[in-house]
């Protein structure tokens, strides 16, 4: 089996690590992507609803939809945050050096936290504002 003479890492190990890192890279983007789509649906939804139906019909349905969407987004981000946390700080780790695998988990966790706060902030107007005006 060929491998790197300096590090002693085989091609197979290298490929496995690369595959794992690719998955982590995609997972890093997951929470901000949920935040972005939540933002898009809330604002576009409110704009379309108010343009088509306006205030006379009430905006209870719109507010409930935003609430539902927000709960779903927060659950998905929390789940992603938990997975990232496990990736960053597994039970059996005892070293202080972050390898690339753990580093990607750490970055994904921090992005999950900021995405969680972002989703809450985006949803707050629906909590206070009860009309299209």
């Amino acid at each position: 089996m060929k491998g790197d003479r300096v590090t002693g890492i085989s091609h197979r190990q290298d490929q496995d690590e690369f595959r794992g890192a690719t998955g982590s890279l995609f997972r890093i983007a997951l929470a901000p992507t949920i935040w972005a789509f939540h933002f898009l649906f809330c604002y576009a939804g409110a704009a379309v609803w108010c343009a088509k139906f306006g205030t006379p019909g009430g905006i209870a349905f719109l507010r409930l939809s935003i609430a539902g969407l927000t709960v779903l987004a927060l659950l998905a981000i929390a789940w992603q945050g938990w997975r990232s946390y496990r990736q960053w700080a597994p039970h059996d780790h005892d070293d202080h050096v972050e390898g690339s695998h753990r580093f990607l988990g750490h970055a994904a966790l921090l992005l999950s936290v900021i995405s969680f706060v972002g989703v809450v902030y985006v949803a707050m107007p629906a909590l206070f504002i009860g009309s299209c005006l």
Partner: protein
Amino acid sequence: MSICRRIRALHPVALPLLLGGCDGPQSALRPGGQDAAQLYLLFVVMLVGAVVLWLALNGLFFYFTRVNQQQFSLRHGNRIIIGAGVILPTVVVGSLLAWGLSIMPSQRAPGDGLVIRVTGEEWWWRVEYWPPGADAPIVSANEIRFPAGSRTELRLTARTYIHSLWIPSLGGKMDMIPGRETVLTLHPDLEGFYRGQCAEFCGASHAMMAFESVVMAPDDFDAWLAHEAAPASRPQTPMQVRGQDIFRDEGCGACHAIRGTEFTGSVGPDLTHLASRHSLAAGIMEVERDDLMRWIAHTRDIKPQVAMPPYDWLDAEELAALAAYLESLE
């Protein structure tokens, strides 16, 4: 006592120069109504909060670099970063957001009856008063009057360009968009004069698109509105009669309406009670003889790209007669 007056009292010479925007008829820091008072409070809390945060941050920076230079453990450092860098700003910004959002519905609260429709034109304001139960509006221009102590609904739109109506001493601003109607409600409390201004860049004469706003006691407002609804007074002196003839001969009535006469144009501002307004040409000149003559003869020098052509072929005597007629429209 407002925050500006307190600061001015501390230093009577230098600070007034720095605090020029604090006072006067167009200052958000001199609230004349409930909505502006809310925004003023929001501003003061944000300002004080920002100062406290700035002092705390720099105080801690000074403390840990000059006074107590001990090394922290990783765990302790992480706690500070998470507490002061993540949790504190999240809570502070979230609280401010919640407070700001809770104010917004009251700034859109339904009016108490009077509706004023304002249309942003190039570059002036078409103003229509719709008292409760009215079938037709009382048309005016370039001045908005409010009864004190009640909430007035402003329904806003624009003809060609996007404008924004803002009376800083009475409340927040609201965009005026062609083809759409936006709503702003204001609850002025203090009687007096306030200045409004277009707050959205709208072309060549944007900076000269202002207006006077007058908050009156409810009884005075009712009397004023009844007068505003009445037709124009007839010219009395020979000079005023000559001015009316010039107004007719020059075709002014094709663009301007003067109710009670044959002049019914609707392109430009209604002039029925021009002389009872506090400004000319949308807040930039006085309604007095010299300014009227200068405006009529040099419209586009004074206000670039305005629709009204300059009547510079009229001689001084004709301009004076025309101005005398317009001055009689009280």
